[in-house]
């Protein structure tokens, strides 16, 4: 992928690859004299850089930065020397000199600070590590938030874009159906320049060694033009690719897919790829950084929406069905049109559709518009994403606070040691501002190095996270590369930490009230203010650690409680494989034969105990389906004339395969065929809710308007979420209510992972072109339900431990410093006959008093914070007693070690030596 090969990309991407590094140039310009001489030096560097860059650009950039710094340092020194000479001769100090003077002072301060920092390497190491960890945690989490929420989607004039949804009372921001989309376009022409829809499509691409299942998007002809996206290669889809169903076998590749699958082949345009057996011509590639219209879901490829039914092997025609709501709508406002006008138009179309299609357009259904810029993923998801992001950033913010408290605490200790030096300098007339600037330079350097380390820690940590095999229900693509926003964030945090936490110690130690320090000869004196500030910092650190650990404890307990929930099915190793029998190749009867044959072949595999088929597996966060239920004598919810109840279509073996007990009546049987009596199974909750007077078996209910006889009752099981209250559920026989989508669920006495592959192999042996859309073990399927809690417990727990570690470092430092400072006092005590043990107890005790105060404050604060978390907890009260007992004990033990270990060092104090040293 050579850079020269893609000039168009360089143009619109403010590419850092053109020309020498700008920041280094800018800095050097500041140091060099603003004359032709200065310019010539920059020109030389530029020229040599270009020559080197032709060979190796990265090396050339490195070289440039190193040389620029080298020249800057030498020139800085030289101009300073000249000026000093000039000033001595009484040369007028011109206006521009004052700026140079500042650069000059900066150089001096930096050198001074670096010298001091390298002189106490332990202090520097601990400070940089603390800050690195704190800033790293913040950078990593901010990268996530940035990728998930902030990062620019690359749309042109995004302020004119509007998201179009269909909303009902229960589901406020749903996707559109294609016919609704067409009506919306028709009715809103006066406010919208164009409207587009896109939908996700699972696509099977032929590869050299089999088939590859891809996550693609079907888009209308307006899609790319409306979003303002230009092709990186070839062309993108347009109106001419959006005319008739099945007539446009063309495909646009996503930039990432093109790079990974085709090694960014520059000659890709014009080649063909085979999708579901049909050749598609590649017409172009999307630009780098464009990840589709829905954040977090980057399609590997884009096909015309007219091709999706064919590609997915759908039985029906989703382009004509108002019930098939899978289309994400986006519209672009006309120049000058307002959002309010758009909403009025949407209301008009809603009214028309309610009148024309009363069956699908119920009174609560309407078009809902949102400004695209206000939406992160979907307003319904955003409601959870934003608080989660807020919580995570609060947690890492607290970790950073503890790290900064360490820094401030160390600085205060050092400042106390330098009181005399500073007092002398102030006494001989040094300006306070100068001293504060010097001390601040030191902290800012520490923060800068800490920040750089933090960025390294963050990238490593994120790599680990990306490498983790999370049981995500769908492919989430987050670009976690460090972009400008993230780097700016880290720089700001580092600088803020350096200045904020360096300022207090700097101001305190340069307090012009110098006389006492000069007079005070003893090393034990003058501890009042500095020490009390340091003590306050320790108290605060302990308190914050307790809050974080309590939070982590509550999440862990909540995870534990969720883990113990019984979903009510799938307790044994089970393979799950989702197949589609494409409607254009299979009639209903052929599909049923295929499913039955496959079931029998899988059942014959060694170790397999039971195999069944279900169209929509329980606890699938992406798919829920409901049937309209009417029962005589049970009033439907207000405003509706039916109950929406979750249902699934199954064969006669499914209940056994998923281990769902039948409690009454019979199960589904092979005799429940299309022309037999329509039957259904219901669960106990259904009976409880709709048939409470007993005798459920044999009763008739109406499903989607048709009478159906209840022949059996199953035990309850979880349907949508592990924590839900029991939900009513309906099962229908596959021969009476056919679905081309089928999960084969195979229970085994052996390994489920192996069986998954065997099932796929059997499915392909029967039909090499069968579409396998998902395949996983039951354990992995159920893990999705716990993923949120697991991640929450892991992240909060990890950061809480980090916080405890940092707080311990702070406490350790404070106590060891106290030991060193009180050496003389300890010496006196020891020489007067006190035993070492009692002195250790005294020193440890003073540390532990701080811990106790901090712990108490922490517990109170945690109790308040836990109330805020209560919505995120499951099965655990916010004031969970075990958590609130264990955390203080753990913190106490760790804190005891952190103060006892350094306190023990008094044993090594030589009483006579300590006294004589004064």
């Amino acid at each position: 992928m050579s850079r020269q090969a893609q000039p168009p990309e360089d143009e619109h991407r403010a590419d850092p690859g053109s020309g020498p590094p700008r920041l280094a140039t800018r800095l050097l310009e500041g140091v060099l004299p603003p004359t032709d001489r200065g310019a010539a030096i920059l020109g030389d560097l530029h020229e040599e850089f270009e020559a080197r860059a032709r060979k190796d650009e990265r090396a050339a950039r490195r070289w440039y930065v190193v040389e620029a710094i080298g020249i800057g340092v030498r020139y800085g020194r030289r101009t300073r020397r000249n000026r000093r000479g000039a000033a001595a001769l009484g040369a007028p100090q011109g206006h521009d000199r004052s700026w140079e003077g500042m650069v000059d002072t900066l150089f001096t301060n930096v050198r001074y600070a670096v010298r001091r920092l390298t002189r106490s390497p332990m202090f520097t190491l601990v400070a940089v590590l603390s800050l690195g960890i704190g800033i790293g945690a913040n950078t990593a989490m901010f990268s996530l938030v940035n990728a998930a929420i902030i990062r620019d989607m690359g749309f042109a004039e995004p302020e004119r874009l509007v998201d179009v949804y269909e909303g009902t009372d229960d589901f406020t921001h749903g996707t559109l159906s294609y016919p609704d989309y067409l009506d919306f376009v028709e009715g809103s022409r006066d406010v919208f320049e164009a409207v587009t829809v896109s939908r996700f499509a699972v696509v099977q691409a032929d590869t050299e060694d089999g088939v590859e299942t891809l996550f693609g998007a079907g888009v209308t002809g307006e899609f790319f033009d409306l979003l303002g996206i230009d092709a990186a290669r070839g062309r993108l889809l347009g109106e001419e690719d959006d005319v008739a169903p099945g007539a446009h076998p063309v495909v646009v590749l996503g930039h990432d897919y093109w790079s990974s699958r085709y090694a960014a082949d520059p000659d890709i345009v014009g080649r063909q790829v085979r999708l579901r057996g049909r050749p598609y011509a590649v017409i172009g590639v999307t630009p780098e950084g464009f990840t589709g219209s829905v954040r977090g879901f980057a399609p590997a490829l884009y096909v015309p929406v007219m091709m999706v039914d064919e590609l997915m092997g759908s039985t029906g025609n989703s382009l004509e069905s108002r019930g098939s709501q899978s289309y994400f709508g986006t519209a672009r406002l006309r120049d000058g049109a307002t959002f309010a006008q758009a909403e009025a138009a949407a209301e008009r179309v809603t009214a028309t559709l309610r009148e024309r299609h009363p069956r699908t357009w119920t009174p609560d259904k309407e078009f809902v518009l949102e400004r695209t810029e206000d939406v992160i993923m979907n307003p319904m998801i955003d409601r959870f994403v934003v608080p989660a992001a807020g919580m995570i950033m609060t947690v890492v913010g607290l970790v950073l606070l503890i790290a900064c408290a360490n820094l401030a605490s160390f600085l205060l200790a050092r400042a106390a040691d330098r009181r005399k030096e500073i007092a002398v300098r102030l006494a001989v007339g040094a300006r306070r501002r100068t001293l504060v600037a010097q001390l601040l330079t030191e902290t800012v350097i520490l923060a800068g190095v800490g920040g750089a380390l933090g960025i390294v820690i963050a990238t490593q940590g994120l790599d680990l996270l990306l490498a983790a095999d999370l049981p995500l229900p769908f492919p989430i693509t987050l670009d976690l590369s460090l972009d400008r926003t993230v780097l700016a964030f880290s720089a700001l945090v580092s600088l803020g930490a350096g200045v904020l936490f360096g300022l207090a110690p700097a101001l305190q130690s340069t307090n012009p009230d110098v006389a006492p320090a000069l007079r005070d000869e003893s090393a034990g004196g003058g501890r009042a203010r500095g020490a009390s500030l340091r003590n306050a910092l320790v108290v605060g650190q302990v308190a914050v650690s307790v809050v974080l650990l309590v939070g982590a404890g509550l999440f862990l307990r909540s995870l534990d409680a969720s883990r113990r929930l019984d979903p009510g099915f799938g307790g044994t190793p089970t393979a799950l494989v989702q197949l589609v029998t494409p409607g254009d190749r299979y009639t209903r009867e052929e599909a049923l034969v295929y499913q039955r044959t496959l079931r029998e072949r899988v059942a014959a595999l060694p170790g397999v105990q039971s195999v069944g088929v279900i169209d929509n597996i329980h606890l699938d966060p992406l798919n829920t389906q409901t049937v309209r239920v009417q029962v005589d004598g049970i009033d439907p919810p207000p405003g509706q004339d039916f109950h929406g109840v979750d249902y699934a279509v199954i064969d006669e073996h499914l209940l056994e395969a998923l281990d769902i007990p039948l409690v009454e009546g019979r199960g589904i049987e092979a005799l429940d065929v299309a022309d037999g009596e329509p039957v259904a199974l219901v669960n106990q909750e259904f009976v409880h809710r709709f048939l409470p007077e007993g005798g459920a078996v044999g009763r008739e209910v109406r499903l989607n308007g048709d009478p159906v006889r209840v022949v059996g009752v199953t035990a309850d099981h979880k349907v949508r979420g592990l924590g839900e209250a029991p939900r009513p559920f309906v099962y229908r026989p596959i021969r009476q209510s056919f679905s081309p989508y089928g999960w084969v669920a195979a229970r085994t006495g052996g390994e489920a992972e192996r069986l998954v592959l065997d099932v796929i192999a059997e499915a392909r042996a029967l039909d090499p072109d069968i579409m396998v859309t998902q395949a996983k073990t039951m354990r992995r399927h159920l893990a999705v339900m716990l993923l949120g809690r697991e991640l929450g417990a892991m992240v909060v727990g990890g950061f809480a431990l980090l916080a405890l570690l940092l707080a311990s470092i702070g406490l350790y430092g404070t106590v060891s410093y106290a030991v060193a400072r009180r050496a003389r006092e300890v010496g006196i005590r020891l020489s007067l006959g006190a035993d070492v043990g009692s002195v250790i107890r005294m020193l440890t005790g003073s540390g532990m008093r701080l811990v106790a105060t901090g712990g108490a404050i922490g517990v109170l604060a945690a109790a308040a914070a836990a109330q805020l978390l209560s919505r995120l907890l499951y099965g655990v009260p916010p004031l969970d007693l075990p958590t609130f007992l264990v955390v203080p004990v753990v913190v106490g033990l760790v804190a005891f070690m952190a103060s006892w270990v350094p306190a023990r060092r008094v044993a090594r104090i030589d009483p006579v030596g300590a006294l004589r040293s004064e």
Partner: protein
Amino acid sequence: MGRGGYLGEFEQMLLLTVLRLGEDAYGVRIMADLEERIGRRVARGSVYVTLDRLEEKGWIVSESVPSASDRGGRPRRVVRVTPKGVGELRKSREALLTLWDGLEHALDG
């Protein structure tokens, strides 16, 4: 290197390189030629600072020449050794030759 002193080693190297390059002596060329001949890297910063010093002493003069391509639109500083500079070189060379006279065998050791 002040009044009546002799050239420093690096000053001497630079002056000789500038002399050798003639019309075409500017930063990049000087450093490339010098590095090639002595076979080790020189720090850019020292070269510029030394050139400035040589010019202050009047041993070289420089002229700003508008740039060709590849320099970000910045001029070149083309330098030339002055007769005074040549005089300094001669003085240093003579001093060194006198000191070396008869000592060549010491190098064979």
